[in-house]
């Protein structure tokens, strides 16, 4: 299907159309910041902010809830333990390209055998309506141009909207996206002038986002390898609090813990999983007390290597999308961009 036009004054109607069969979530103001929140009422539609720079949490929270029930049990013995999966049809409206790439990564990682049934059940009923970023999002933390996340990925999304002033230029990326266009009644085909406007948008965008790494990001895995023993990690981790804020806000982090929670009768309860972080001190501790990443520098180094190397090697998708959230929210102002810049010094020292 060729690109379509959605006038801005029809967006509310389009959201209403989506709400008929889905939970719709979209970016809204949250204090000084922005967050994806449920569009439940008509007032909520007015609160949608498609001019947002970046949300606090990425949309992963809808596919990987912070707490999720895995099993219900009625006693210590295993008989009768019942598994549960919750999957609500959801449209995530207004996802920036770097977050669309983040979803590609969690999709790939959690589909690997043995696949994560709960994530995949939710992903199957989740639709992604992407939103192009404009010049307004340039800030000191992001490095999307280096990580090639300024444009949407080839797949994994249904519609992609680009702001042309009083209207959106909308591209379809899936059959579901085409169905949305066909049945909502608010789209019209784009004209040649609008195609041209889209090209001009791209040119302006490219001019606003410069590369910030002193090397092509395809060399990041090798530079990281060369820097494994570098004192850089000790230096950077010296001010780290091991608080885990970075992993919380990261679009490609998905580690979790599994714990049993007893009900008030102290017999029945649930086995749940919840977000966890390799930055927390006890993450790699085993029974008996040995901790394989006891030192902060080893934990911080592990995270950098996951983001810059291991996830890419294991899934073929980016471990870091250059969104800058971890740096933005770090209590100690540690910058992953700076760390990736500094490993360039290892090029001569290392391999």
């Amino acid at each position, binding site marked *: 299907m060729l690109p379509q036009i959605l006038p801005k004054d029809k967006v509310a109607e389009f959201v209403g159309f989506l*709400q008929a*069969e*889905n*939970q719709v979530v979209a970016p809204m103001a949250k204090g000084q910041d922005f967050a994806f929140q449920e569009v*439940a*009422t008509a007032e909520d539609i007015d609160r949608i902010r498609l001019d947002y720079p970046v949300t606090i949490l990425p949309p992963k929270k809808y596919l990987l809830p912070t707490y999720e029930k*895995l*099993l219900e*049990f009625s*006693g*210590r*013995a*295993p*008989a009768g*333990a*019942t*598994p*549960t*999966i*919750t*999957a*609500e*049809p959801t449209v995530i409206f207004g996802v920036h390209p770097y977050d669309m790439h983040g979803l590609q990564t969690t999709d790939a*990682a959690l589909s*690997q055998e*043995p696949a*994560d*049934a*709960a994530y995949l*059940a939710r992903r199957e009923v989740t639709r992604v309506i992407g939103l192009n970023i404009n010049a307004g999002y340039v800030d000191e933390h992001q490095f999307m141009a280096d990580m090639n996340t300024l444009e949407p990925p080839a797949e994994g999304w249904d519609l992609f909207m680009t702001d042309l002033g009083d209207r959106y230029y909308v591209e379809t990326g899936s059959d579901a996206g085409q169905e949305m266009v066909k049945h909502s009644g608010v789209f019209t085909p784009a004209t040649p002038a609008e195609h041209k406007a889209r090209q001009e948008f791209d040119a302006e965008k490219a001019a606003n986002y410069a590369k910030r790494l002193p090397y092509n990001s395809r060399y990041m895995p090798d530079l990281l390898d060369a820097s*494994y023993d570098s004192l850089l990690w000790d230096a950077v981790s010296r001010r780290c609090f091991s608080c885990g804020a970075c992993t919380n806000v990261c679009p490609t982090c*998905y*580690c*979790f*813990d*599994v*714990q*049993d929670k007893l009900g008030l009768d*102290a*017999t029945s*309860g649930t*086995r749940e*999983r919840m977000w*966890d972080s*390799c930055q927390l001190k006890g*993450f*790699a*501790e*085993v*029974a*008996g007390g040995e901790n*394989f*990443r006891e030192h902060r520098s*080893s934990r911080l180094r*592990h995270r950098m*290597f*996951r983001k810059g*190397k*291991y996830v890419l*090697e294991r899934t073929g998708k980016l471990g870091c999308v250059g969104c800058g959230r971890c740096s933005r929210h770090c209590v100690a102002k540690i910058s992953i961009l700076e760390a990736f810049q500094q490993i360039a010094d290892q090029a001569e020292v290392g391999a």
Partner: protein
Amino acid sequence: MKPQTATQEKPAVESPYQPRVARIVDIKNFTEKEKYFRFVFDDGQGIEYAAGQFMEVSIFGVGEAPISICSAPGKREDLEMCIREVGDVTGALHALDVGDTVGLRGPFGNGFDMDTVAGKDLLFVAGGLGLAPCRSFIQAALNEPDKFGKITVLYGAKSPQDLLYPDDLKVWAKREDCEFMMTVDRGDESWQGNTGVITTLFRKIGKVDPANTAAFIIGPPIMFKFAVLEMLAMGLRKPNIYCSLERRMKCGLGKCGHCQIRNVYVCQEGPIFSYAEVMRLREGI
């Protein structure tokens, strides 16, 4: 007005987190804090597993813990574990009786195909509780001794009170097709056997053909370091020295992240690694 959306909270047909019901059919007290358990499955389906694999053992309301299987691998009705009481789940396990049930998920881990060392001399070095997973390899070899060359088993424990599998130790010592030696770090008044760390047994091994020997070292990291040094000194090849790297395996499915060593998930690509891989992993030991 919030529309009616269909929230599906349904029992999944297959959740990889749901354990099978396993019943305890035998318990033996090995030491003050280690017990032997034998389990059979209530669904009558038995289990098939390889040497070095592990199960996730569930006590609902308490939690789930990864424990190595210590019985010989294959397709069988039952499986055995030797479990040390160190925390909540193992503490709850130790309080159970024959006839009680636990949840078992698995088998997990890459396991080891004994066929890959067919025809080779086998050297097993087990330290402390490492004897439990090592035993699955030892029994696999001793059940088909003609498939392999010379079989040597070295076992070291802290003291005579810490010895595991006392019946098996006697059987292995008597077998003619296996050279078995053990030692304790410190003996007591009645101890008549070897004393000293396990590496002191290396000089007592008969002639070794280093090019045709596969070694399996399972025990505390410090023991691994010194045992590997001895083996390399004997001329064994790095790809032919295997060990089991323990980590906090939680999900067993390569997803929760706790068992990561650099870019591998121990529950998927491990826990059995060759020394060549361990060297590459750096933070492995």
